[in-house]
């Protein structure tokens, strides 16, 4: 487990490439920063694809022992199915957002470096580096550093417009994120004190149901929930995500919250012994269920499109937590289904939500406002953006065929299979509510514009195509035969067996 596997060097490149790219983009600036970002994110997608292929072909996680020091003294990078799937999702969404941003954040030749484009390209690379560190890290303190990187990158991208009103919401996000970091760090210190290591694989062997371990898990979980905005810690998310520029909102809602979720899974599925984890899981799933219902109901009542999409994130995050009691229920078949369902939900929501925020941004930019009640004419002026919104909505609702459908269906059958029918009821109810708010937007966009309204400026084709492509990926995930998702099961600890 602690040695370097064949293909392990790919993990080093997947992390070092965006780190080096970010440093060079920062030093060289201007137009060069944009070129470096596009090149590195393109290469990063190829690397993520290679890593996923290697993990799948080997049927076992890739690992790289850093500096030749074996854990617990040293650190390792590792890519199991979860990490490989999330890395590939992140690489694709980052590349799409970069292509989307070319229109607004271009630095034409001969033009001096400006604040927003320079910040955008540099922090896009910073975010790629942070996500790679969060997915590939095998040590809880190393993952803390990844969380810190993530906070700075996400915060700066959200403030890209430079509006003071946005600083206020982002400051609130920063407080939540920092309190989350402190709680996480306290937990790692306790775990080190109790077990003398922070390596996840070693902790999995050593951790028991003792007081320090349980308190550490509670603190770290609370910290990660604050970062993920799980109900009732969701208050910071809607203003922080909705007020950001569309490219940033897509990344924040689609990817940044998922990194904290991967850490939560590392803690709950790998580190914690199954018995206390199984006892705590219904509590988290209960909060997730509340998030689905409350988030969707508030989204239904929103008057602004971007806030509606942000509240939809609050709800969709809730689904992720439903997998925990199902994976930990002790039924291997249901556990495998729930595991795939949860990860597919994370991936398909990343694509769908990125598509939604990008198309909402295009609609708002063209109409000059984002009032849900006055979207009339949007469908005629920018059909591609509205179709992208609709397709992404299908995936969020869980209508076949879409990635969201497969994810929710897997969770639903796992819930029924383990006799936990109440989660199935929440999944169905959430789907109906989601249908309600997506319908409001689509129905409004497809009506004729009011006679007096000015003709909306049709947006550039490029960004519209990117939004549509993301939405199509989120749908296409539902057309992939289930057997080919075996990737995500690789390296998952099986209850009662060796990890």
């Amino acid at each position, binding site marked *: 487990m602690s040695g*370097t596997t064949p293909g392990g*060097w790919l993990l*080093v490149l997947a992390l*070092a490439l965006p*780190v*080096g790219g*970010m*440093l*060079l983009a*920062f*030093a060289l*600036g201007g137009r060069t920063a944009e070129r470096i970002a596009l090149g590195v994110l393109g290469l990063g997608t190829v690397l993520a694809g290679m890593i996923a292929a290697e993990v799948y072909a080997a049927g076992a996680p890739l690992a*790289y*022992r*850093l*500096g*030749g*020091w074996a854990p*617990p*003294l*040293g*650190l390792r*990078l590792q890519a199991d199915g979860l990490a490989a799937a999330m890395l590939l999702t992140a690489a694709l969404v980052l590349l799409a957002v970069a292509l989307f941003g070319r229109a607004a954040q271009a630095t034409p030749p001969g033009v*001096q*470096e*400006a*604040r*927003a484009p*320079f*910040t955008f390209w*540099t*922090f896009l690379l*910073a975010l790629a*580096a942070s996500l790679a*560190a969060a997915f590939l890290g095998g040590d809880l303190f*190393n993952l803390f*550093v*990844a969380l810190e*990187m993530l906070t*700075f*990158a996400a*915060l*700066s991208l959200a*403030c*890209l417009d*430079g509006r003071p009103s946005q*600083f206020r919401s982002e400051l609130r996000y920063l407080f939540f994120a920092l309190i989350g970091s402190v709680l996480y760090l*306290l937990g790692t210190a*306790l775990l*080190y*004190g*109790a077990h*003398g*290591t922070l390596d996840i694989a070693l902790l999995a062997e050593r951790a028991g149901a*003792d*007081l*320090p371990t349980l*308190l*550490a898990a509670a*603190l770290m979980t609370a910290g990660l929930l604050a970062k993920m905005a799980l109900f009732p810690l969701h208050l910071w998310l809607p203003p922080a995500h909705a007020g950001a520029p569309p490219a940033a909102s897509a990344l924040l809602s689609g990817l940044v919250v998922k990194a904290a979720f991967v850490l939560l899974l590392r803690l709950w599925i790998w580190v914690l012994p199954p018995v206390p984890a199984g006892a705590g899981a219904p509590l988290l799933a209960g909060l997730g269920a509340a998030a689905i219902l409350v988030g969707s109901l508030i989204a239904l009542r929103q008057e602004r499109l971007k806030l509606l999409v942000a509240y939809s994130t609050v709800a969709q995050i809730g689904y992720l937590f439903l997998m925990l009691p199902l994976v930990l229920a002790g039924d291997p078949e249901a556990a495998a289904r729930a595991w795939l369902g949860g990860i597919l939900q994370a991936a398909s929501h990343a694509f769908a939500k990125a598509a939604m925020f990008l198309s909402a941004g295009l609609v708002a930019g063209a109409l000059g406002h984002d009032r849900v009640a006055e979207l009339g004419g949007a469908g005629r002026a920018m059909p591609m953006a509205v179709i992208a919104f609709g397709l992404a909505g299908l995936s969020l609702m869980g209508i076949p065929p879409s990635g969201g459908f497969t994810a929710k269906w897997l969770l639903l059958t796992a819930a029924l299979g383990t006799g936990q029918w109440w989660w199935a009821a929440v999944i169905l109810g959430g789907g109906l509510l989601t249908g309600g708010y997506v319908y409001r937007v689509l129905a409004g966009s497809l009506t004729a514009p009011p006679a007096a309204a000015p003709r909306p400026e049709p947006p550039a084709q490029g960004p519209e195509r990117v939004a549509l492509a993301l939405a199509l990926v989120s749908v296409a995930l539902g057309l992939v035969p289930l057997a080919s998702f075996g990737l995500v099961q690789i390296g998952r600890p099986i209850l009662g067996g060796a990890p």
Partner: protein
Amino acid sequence: MGGLVDWLLAALVLGAAAWTLAAPTGFAAVVGFVGFGLLVTLAWVRLGAVDVALTEAAIGAGATGVILLMAVVRLRGGAEEVSAATPGRAVMVAAGLLAGGVGLALALAVLALPDPAPGLAAAAMARRGELGLGNPVAAVLMGYRGLDTLLESVVLVFAVLAVWSMAPDRRWGGIPGPRFPRQEAGPLALLARLLLPIGLVIGIHVAWVGAEAPGGKFQGGTILAAMWVLAWVAGLVQPPAIASQAVRLALVAGPLAFLLAGFAGMALGEGFLAWPPGLAKPMILLVEAAMTLSVAAALALLVAGPPERAA
């Protein structure tokens, strides 16, 4: 005797924390915070963790104290907004109860920790010779857990850019922070002229001895940054424009050198971030020198803040 000192120190740490929270003004709270940091520094010394103590003094109390002080100065004139953003009594009581509960649970958990504590201190000590380093903390930072250090140094670049990116668009590329008038007489002028050369020597020394004794790039870099801030406040130097290539290179020199050394390890040694045998000590010193420069530049620019005027 030692026990009495520890009890007293613990009481003082708690007292300083309480005083900081209860302080009537922002300025008083910062003073309390710096005092708290210095007391915690003493606590680390009592625990035998001199490296941590140095870091707490330099970064926890020193650099953070200065940045908080700058924030307090910038908040002047915004009394209404500050009081609007200050949480109400109910929220404060709830937060206090929550913090107290967490503190109590932590205390119970710490008492339940195994004794003697399992740890890696012996292993870290035993293998530091392979890196040619005498200080086990340096071996952890540059060797065993090099990736943490590399990524932390990258976070500093993130932080500087994050601060810069909050500037108004038209100020991009300009000079950060306020302009201080040149002090020809008075305590500040004297301090800046007397302390500066000494501080520079101490800063470089602390960074240099880190390989063998407590100290290192973060602490040394912080002292160097403090000396620059002193010269800036005394009006002796101006912050550089953020568009300057030299500034950007100084900021990325450390992490970039570390990254390149990491790849050198892949080519010549046991893998990424491994120090090639025989070359470990000289390469580590080179990377540490670049890191000291980058840490100093980053901390100084974090204090200076976003660009405020044209270059």
